[in-house]
């Protein structure tokens, strides 16, 4: 068990102009499950691999526990890693796969046996111990890969998109298993994924990365409710948050032909980006004029695509609700998110209450 402290870490590949990871600092508490999430090429895997010791660190410092590990071999960092393609040794049985790391560490035989048996019991791999990986299904292989990490009893687990090769249904099951296992063992974990749903459901804390920098760190719900930038707003949550061009005029927010009274002065003026979650929009007698384009059925709810004053908008509605080709929408004032148009940064606003009913200008 250990904390992981990442201080001002950066990585520039030889020959590359821009750094892949630049100046990232992150303190991971003991026993915490941190998920690094971002689009491909955002540097999340590079960061993980630097913690693992598979990539050299160009600048900054990585500490596992109290030990700076920048120059320490991956084998001696006391970590275990689960790879996207499982990376099981194809010629070894499940048992040998799990025991290999322990054998290299000269763990006594009976202890290896005990740990492998325990891990196999935990992961329900008992009947497969003497099979080769090729005789296993994708989900079972992934469990073996986890078993290989578990038997080592490391101070940290590193997961590099472990569920990306599984089909959708299995992914949900395995997600639950990883969560349960991690809670049970209480091992500090760093988990990389590009899937925002996986990130939301697994994380104690989420780290959203973009272009090698941290966009936002926080609990999943905090990030969902208060995204720090338009990037985070559009990346976290499905459907993505609606982002609309609007204009601030004192406490009045002008959106196309409508005006929303904010009731208080925000700390900005002029052109801003207004963010509204699809589920925060409700049909009402008056409000934003919405024109319906098409509907996506999700079963439990409906996604209604359309536009207001030429800007595309999505809202989720109960399937029982009637949908007209033209509707009026309103939104709670507290559910409005304002971002600077130029930088995409969130504009701090105090908590508001009441329903913001837009009026025709």
């Amino acid at each position, binding site marked *: 068990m250990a904390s992981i402290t990442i201080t001002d870490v950066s990585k520039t590949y030889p020959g590359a102009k821009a750094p892949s990871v630049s100046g990232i600092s992150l303190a991971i508490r003991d026993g915490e499950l941190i998920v690094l999430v971002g689009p491909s090429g955002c540097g999340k895997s590079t960061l993980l691999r630097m913690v693992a010791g*598979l990539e050299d660190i160009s600048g900054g410092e990585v500490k596992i526990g109290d030990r700076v590990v920048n120059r320490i071999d991956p*084998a001696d960092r006391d*970590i275990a890693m689960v*790879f996207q393609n499982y*990376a099981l*040794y*194809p010629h070894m049985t499940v048992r040998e796969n799990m025991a290999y790391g322990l054998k*290299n560490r000269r763990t006594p035989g009976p202890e290896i046996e005990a740990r492998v048996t325990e891990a196999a019991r935990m992961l329900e791999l008992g009947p497969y111990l003497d099979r080769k990986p090729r005789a296993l299904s994708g989900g079972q292989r992934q469990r073996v890969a986890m078993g290989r990490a578990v038997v080592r009893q490391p101070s940290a687990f590193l997961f590099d998109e472990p569920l990306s090769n599984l089909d959708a249904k299995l992914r949900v099951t395995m997600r639950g298993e990883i969560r349960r296992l991690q809670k049970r063992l209480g091992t500090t974990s760093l988990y990389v994924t590009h899937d925002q749903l996986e990130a939301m459901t697994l994380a104690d804390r989420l780290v959203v990365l973009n272009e090698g920098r941290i966009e936002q760190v926080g609990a999943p719900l905090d990030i969902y409710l208060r995204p720090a930038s338009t990037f985070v707003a559009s990346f976290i949550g499905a459907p993505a948050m609606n982002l609309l061009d609007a204009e601030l005029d004192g406490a009045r927010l002008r959106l196309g032909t409508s005006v929303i009274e904010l009731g208080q002065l925000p700390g900005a003026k002029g052109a801003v980006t207004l963010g509204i979650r699809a589920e925060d929009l409700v049909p009402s007698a008056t409000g934003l004029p919405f024109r319906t384009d098409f509907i996506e059925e999700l079963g439990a709810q409906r996604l209604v695509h359309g536009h207001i004053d030429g800007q595309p908008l999505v809202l989720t509605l109960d399937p029982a609700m009637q949908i007209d080709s033209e509707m009026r929408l309103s939104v709670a004032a507290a559910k409005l998110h304002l971002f600077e148009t130029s930088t995409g940064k969130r504009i701090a606003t105090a908590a508001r209450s009441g329903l913001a009913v837009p009026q025709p200008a």
Partner: protein
Amino acid sequence: MNRIKPFDHIILILGTLFMCVPVLVAVMTSTHSAVDIHMNGLYLTPGDNAVGTYQTVLTRQGGFTGQVTGLTMLMNSLILGIGFAVGKIVLSMAAAYALVYFRFRFATFLFWIIFTTLLLPLEVRIMPSYQVMSSLGLLNSYTGLIVPLLASATGTFYFRQFFKSVPDELLEAARIDGAGPWKFLIDILIPLSKTMMAAIFIIMFVYGWNQYLWPMLMTTEERFFTLMRGIKQILQVWIGSQIPDYNEAFALAVLALLPPVIVVVVFQRWFIRGLTESDK
């Protein structure tokens, strides 16, 4: 079910006959006596002289000095073939491992230099090679027979391509599992290369087994003679009215045929099993 197409079968049967009949003729003819063969030509039926001929061929003290038997020649050929195959596998595997997994300068350049030597046949460098072995005093020795031919661009190339196809994650997983370069090679890479090794063993064993020119240059003592030279020798006795021992030549040819066949059959099974089983 597909309909049986007679025409396809005829082609297949003809092909099989084309490949198998000469071998059959050799086997059958070797069981007759030299005089019969000289009078009646080749045979397709078994004769009654099989045991005698093969016994003579394997045990008779032949040659100029009377030192060499068929068995010795068989041994020599085996030493040459196996030495070749094993040596080449070890050497080219080591070279490929260095080229693929250790980042040193000019690695690619070095590889291409090795690779271009593929274009040079043994015959081109046979005199300098002989000269070197001669100065080292290695003529008439197994070392001299085997070592100069061990460096193999083909083998290095095959192993390099194979190592490159092994996923990087496997190396990374092994590093995290605490395996150093040696352990990775021995515990992971060598077991994974089994099929590759089987394939190269087949090719190289046959190549070594069939060497004729090089052993002839390198060895003058008869106790180093290989089977290939033995066959040649039996047929070279046509002096005056003496009849060459056709039966013995055929018997020796059949004997020369057997080990490569066994190697191919055994390793091919392994080779195919590896191909169908492995998924990296």
